[in-house]
């Protein structure tokens, strides 16, 4: 096991940020921590990277205890915090050189590991980090977190606020790093990124809702789920919410995902109801649950 977390709790004054969290991440695994702001993701990252001490529970990273062996952990992990934390007034190259030196290595020694990513920002190597675009900052931060060849990489919301193209590229980079044997714990509020992880933990309000592979989590969603569409989205959502048998009504792109409370639900009946609400072009088709459906059902 690369990361072991057992019964970890942490509270700040009145807020219980983490409530009795336990899970393990296997060596070489790409593990996702999926949840919204305030779920406790950053607190957990800070405990695992030895920047914060838990109130209760034990945890180890790369075989080292977070309390008694914190110095070994710091040598063996890379951490990319959610907030950009490099030196804004050092250049790209100076930042990278700085982090390499701190860890007693050189850019040349581990260049192989960062090459794919670094060549994308190399044309700007003499630019100050503070003057880079969001996407380039993110790539530089990743290089700096990798330059000492860590065993475990912690990435706290690396793609928040990043456009879909850059997000896709970032995940392709993560996959390549995983192939080089690095264990990765990554957090994200984007549910579509969950599908790209080997296993995920859904987290909300300091509690783990569920841990499994993305495919298995989706299978745990037992209710039949329907794509409903009509001529007017706003009225459709309102009408479905007013329907006495509804279990859940969530807009999903061009459709509304609808589940019914009854086991003998008949879509034709719902269609008649929606027509009575003066909606037209109604379609009701069975669909499959996504991670987001599962998350919302569990968080309800």
């Amino acid at each position, binding site marked *: 096991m690369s990361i072991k977390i057992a019964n970890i709790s942490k509270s700040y004054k009145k807020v219980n940020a983490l409530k009795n969290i336990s899970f393990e991440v296997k060596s070489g695994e790409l593990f996702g921590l999926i*949840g*919204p*702001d*305030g*779920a406790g993701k950053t607190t957990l990252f800070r405990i695992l990277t030895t920047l914060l001490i838990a109130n209760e529970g034990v945890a180890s990273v790369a075989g080292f205890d977070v309390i008694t062996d914190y110095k070994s952990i710091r040598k063996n992990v890379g951490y990319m915090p959610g907030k950009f934390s490099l030196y804004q007034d050092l250049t790209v190259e100076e930042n990278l050189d700085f982090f390499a030196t701190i860890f007693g290595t050189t850019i040349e020694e581990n260049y192989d590991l960062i090459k794919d990513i670094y060549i994308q920002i190399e044309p700007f190597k003499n630019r100050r980090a503070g003057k880079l*675009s*969001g*996407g380039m900052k993110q790539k530089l931060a990743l290089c700096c977190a990798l330059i000492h060849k860590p065993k475990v990489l912690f990435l706290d919301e690396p793609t*928040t*606020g*990043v*456009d*879909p*193209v*850059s*997000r*896709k590229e970032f995940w392709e980079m993560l996959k390549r790093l995983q192939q080089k044997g690095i264990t990765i714990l990554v957090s994200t*509020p*984007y*549910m*579509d990124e969950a599908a790209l992880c080997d296993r995920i933990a859904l987290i*909300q309000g300091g509690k783990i809702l569920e841990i499994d592979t993305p495919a298995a989590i989706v299978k745990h969603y037992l209710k039949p789920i329907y794509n409903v569409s009509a001529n007017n*989205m*706003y009225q459709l*959502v309102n009408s479905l919410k007013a329907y006495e048998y509804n279990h859940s009504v*969530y*807009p*999903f*792109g*061009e459709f509304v995902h609808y589940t019914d409370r009854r086991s003998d639900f008949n879509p034709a009946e719902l269609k008649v109801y929606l027509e009575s609400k003066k909606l037209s072009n109604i379609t009701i088709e069975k669909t499959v649950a996504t991670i*987001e459906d599962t*998350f*919302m059902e569990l*968080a*309800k």
Partner: protein
Amino acid sequence: MNTNKVIQVKELTKVFGDFTAVNAITFDVEKGEIFGFLGANGAGKTTAMKMLIGISNPTSGKATVAGFDVFTNAEDIKKNIGYMSQKFALYDDLTVKENITFFGGIYGLSRKRIKEKAAILIKELGLENVANKLVGSLPLGWKQKLSFSVSLIHDPKIVFLDEPTGGVDPITRRQFWELIYKASHQGITVFVTTHYMDEAEYCDRVSIMVNGKIEALDTPKKLKEQFKVDTMNDVFLKLARG
């Protein structure tokens, strides 16, 4: 001028030194429309939006927002639009009521009107129990909903939303969109930027900016047909990646 067009933009351009951030963009937005303004980081969205809300002078082109010219009447634009961004929303160390009063005052509402508005708003959002609590103590999702409602306090014709739903949970994100639908239903035009492509599907029309230009503009359905893909995410990837 067609009064149904709340935003009219023609060949709008912004140049910084030798860099053209916004390159002759042209589009109209209708009354009550939910208009999605998408693009990769650095494509020029923020620069374009800044010109439309009257805080950045265009280099060339024409644009009117809520009937006012962006070159000559920028101050009138600011008074007549709503604006909400994820980065700046409300004052954390003022209470819910104080925030509403503050923004009502800024927009020149009478004390009586502010009182009425505050009561309606707090009731609609179900914030009765936390009306006198500091905004900083509220969950992010509540703050965002409150922030949206506050951006509408002066009954603007149009509201600009800059990545309004970043980081919130999927249920709250949907509740937020219900507020957007409601506003649109009441005739308010909604101009919104987002990185969530499922939210792009909720828009009436969507424009996608690439390197300073609008490369696509249509309903989500037609864009998907045009690019022969199933989701807006794929439309975006196809366009922005070339």
